């Protein structure tokens, strides 16, 4: 195995791995500071922050060091490469580089949104000299507040790492951003009349190591050190991008992509990034509701839940074969399992259906060429299937029932009168039912709707259960590729809305409280297709379902 020596510490790398010094040092637990380098973008070695001393270990054991410093991001390592990143020479170079990058950087950390998660702040503290020797006036460039609908540029804060430019050229392929002028007049800019509004544009804000590119949506909303983060999964489409949910005092402020090589990589699309606003919408269901003849009779969980239980039991006794359950592909695996097993317990003939799977257009592949056609090598996909967990819900229903009934079948059975009692677990914020379809539900003798937003169906429900959005509950989503990822409860829902898992636990009168990891172990035993969930805690990257599980699910 090739061995690289980083700060006197030998590190083995894979025989066919092509690593640069930064990556090799990372294996050794050594951080080489860098701004312009990003592992998903091409290397330009322009910031000079990653300068290191390099050398070669000769077969006879002697080490020959190169006299000059090398940019670590641009220099590949091989067997016997020696990297020194903590010598006086390197430290002096880091200090000088930082001083140079900071020459014209305004000292406006107090009003800068990046403060607290800023590469300049962190490295100045760690590697810089802590003060400026510049006595000339700073070169201040005017701000550009329209780079895109969601992006503003504080030109004077920019350190010209060109990560954003390379992102629009290499990942989105749309190439809206560019560097104009040369030398000290260099600026990031757009072509006139061609703003950076592609569907991946929000990523340039994350890529910016300083506070130059800022998100208009988050601008001046919060100081970042007040945000509490929880790992989660974007529910916007079946790609299932790993994200971070950033909230403070039960208000969600932003979603940030979380790097996950098993899921989407390092980025996320703007549909997901800004698509969470329904969480704080006024049409959220905030209280449960029991209605008799259209009149609200109770809005108390302690009354509504037992009433739902009794109403379902009565309906099953009356017409055991006319009870159906619809589980939305927005539900977690745990919720699907709880509801499916509960329905089968009270009515062994209950029909289990999957809710409407919303498909919008076709998969959107990036990068695109100048004509908007996808390039040969896809680096990011926004999927047409706009739900996070179709595979998970289908796997559970398949196991419990043997086959999956689509939602349209249930609707026609309702019209025919074959279904008289219906329990719907919703969750799709875009509205999962049209007014004409909802009118068909008028025939039902019992309609229980568990959802998070008011919809055409919720106004007809006899019982309404106020559920939770993805950021307000624990659970598991399985993406298009069979990757099971955990979502975590980051904030509390509005008023008395409860996590769906908790509602279903209480409805099924199961012992104990909802605990996703415990439930996952139970599901792994009960559903062979999801046996990979037996680990309980799914970790940062999630767990890939084994091939047996995948093929079984694909027959659905």
């Amino acid at each position, binding site marked *: 195995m090739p061995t690289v020596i980083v700060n006197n510490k030998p590190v083995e790398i894979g025989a066919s791995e092509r690593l640069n010094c930064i990556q090799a040092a990372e294996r050794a637990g050594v951080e080489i500071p860098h701004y312009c380098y990003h592992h998903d973008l091409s290397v330009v070695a322009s910031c000079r922050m990653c300068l290191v001393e390099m050398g070669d270990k000769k077969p006879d054991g002697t080490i020959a060091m190169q006299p000059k410093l090398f940019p670590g991001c641009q220099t590949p390592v091989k067997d016997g490469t020696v990297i020194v990143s903590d010598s006086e020479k390197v430290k002096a170079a880091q200090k000088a580089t930082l001083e140079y990058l900071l020459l014209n950087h305004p000292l406006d950390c*107090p009003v800068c949104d990046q403060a607290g998660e800023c590469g300049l702040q962190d490295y100045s503290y760690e590697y810089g000299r*802590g003060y400026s020797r510049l006595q000339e006036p700073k070169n201040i460039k005017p701000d550009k507040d329209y780079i895109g609908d969601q992006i503003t540029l504080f030109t004077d804060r920019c350190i010209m790492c060109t990560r954003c430019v390379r992102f629009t050229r290499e990942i989105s392929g749309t190439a809206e951003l560019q560097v104009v002028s040369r030398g000290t007049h260099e600026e990031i800019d757009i072509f006139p009349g061609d703003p950076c509004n592609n569907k991946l544009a929000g990523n340039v804000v994350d890529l910016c190591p300083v506070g130059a590119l800022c998100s208009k949506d988050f601008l001046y909303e919060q100081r970042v050190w007040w945000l509490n983060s929880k790992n989660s999964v974007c529910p916007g489409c079946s790609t299932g991008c790993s994200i971070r949910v950033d909230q403070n005092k039960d208000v969600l402020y932003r979603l940030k992509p979380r790097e996950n090589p098993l899921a989407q990589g390092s980025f996320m699309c703007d549909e997901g990034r800004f698509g969470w606003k329904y969480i704080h919408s006024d049409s959220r269901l905030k209280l449960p509701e029991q209605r008799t003849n259209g009149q609200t009779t109770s809005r108390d969980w302690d009354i509504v839940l037992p009433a739902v239980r009794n109403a379902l039991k009565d309906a099953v006794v009356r017409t055991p074969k006319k009870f159906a359950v619809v589980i939305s592909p927005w539900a977690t695996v745990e919720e699907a399992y709880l509801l499916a097993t509960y329905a089968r317990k009270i009515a062994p003939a209950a029909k289990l259906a999957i809710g409407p799977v919303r498909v919008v257009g076709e998969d959107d592949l990036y990068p695109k060429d100048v004509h908007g056609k996808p390039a040969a090598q896809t680096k990011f996909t926004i999927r047409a299937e706009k739900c996070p967990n179709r595979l998970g819900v289908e796997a559970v229903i398949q196991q419990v029932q043997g086959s999956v009934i689509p939602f349209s079948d249930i609707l026609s059975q309702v019209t025919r009168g074959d279904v008289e009692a219906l329990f719907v677990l919703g969750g799709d914020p875009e509205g999962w039912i049209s007014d004409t379809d909802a009118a068909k539900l008028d025939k039902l003798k019992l309609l229980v709707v568990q959802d998070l937003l008011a919809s055409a169906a919720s106004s007809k429900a006899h019982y309404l259960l106020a559920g939770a959005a993805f950021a307000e509950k624990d659970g598991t989503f399985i993406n298009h590729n069979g990757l099971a990822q955990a979502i975590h409860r980051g904030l509390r829902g509005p008023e008395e809305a409860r996590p769906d898992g908790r509602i279903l636990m209480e409805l099924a009168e199961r012992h104990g409280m909802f605990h996703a990891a415990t439930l996952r172990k139970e599901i792994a035993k009960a559903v062979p297709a999801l046996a990979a969930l037996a680990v309980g805690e799914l970790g940062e990257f999630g767990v890939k379902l084994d091939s047996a599980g995948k093929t079984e699910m694909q027959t659905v």
Partner: protein
Amino acid sequence: MPINAKDVDWVEEPPMNFWEATFLPAVVDGLRATGHHVTHFKPVTQMYPEVASDLPKHYRGVHRLNRDDAGRVKCVACMMCATACPARCIDIVAQEAPKDDPNWVDRDKFPKSFVIDELKCIYCGMCEEACPVDAIEMTHIYDLTGMTRQEMLFDKEKLLSVFDQTKDCGLDPVRTHKGKLGPASDFEQLPTLGPATQVRSDDRSAKSATPGVIK
């Protein structure tokens, strides 16, 4: 961790001589001090509330929000005070400065709302220490009353009115950067910073008269 025996210095009480052992000189000294207080009587008790209290200059009373020369609120809504506040009594909502208003071209951000709960506040002064633009300062006003809790939530207007009321009274001078916005928002003239961290003795700047300035 036990203290190392060699780190401990044992000190003996000095021995008393004959006169000291009689304690008479000490008694005479004490009587002289008593006599001095009788002949040079000066009351130290302040007759508050009949007479207003004579406060030290650094007294930490009710907060104020300073104005700059243009009369705008000096605060840049960086929320450092709210971060530093141990009582969590400061609540700020920031807003982008109006871009098309010529009076605000030099500003990026200002507070839309700035509320201090004067009942929660423990008057520790951390907020004024944290402020990078000297916008929040504490005044000598200590007699604070209100009929409701709501009244004691001081908003931006109220805090600015405290500034108008106290800036010329002599007890609370605007301490620094009068009229200027301070380093955080003042782009025209940035003062050379002193070293925030230790300067190594072999660094060029350490040899200059002012650290951080090269002659």
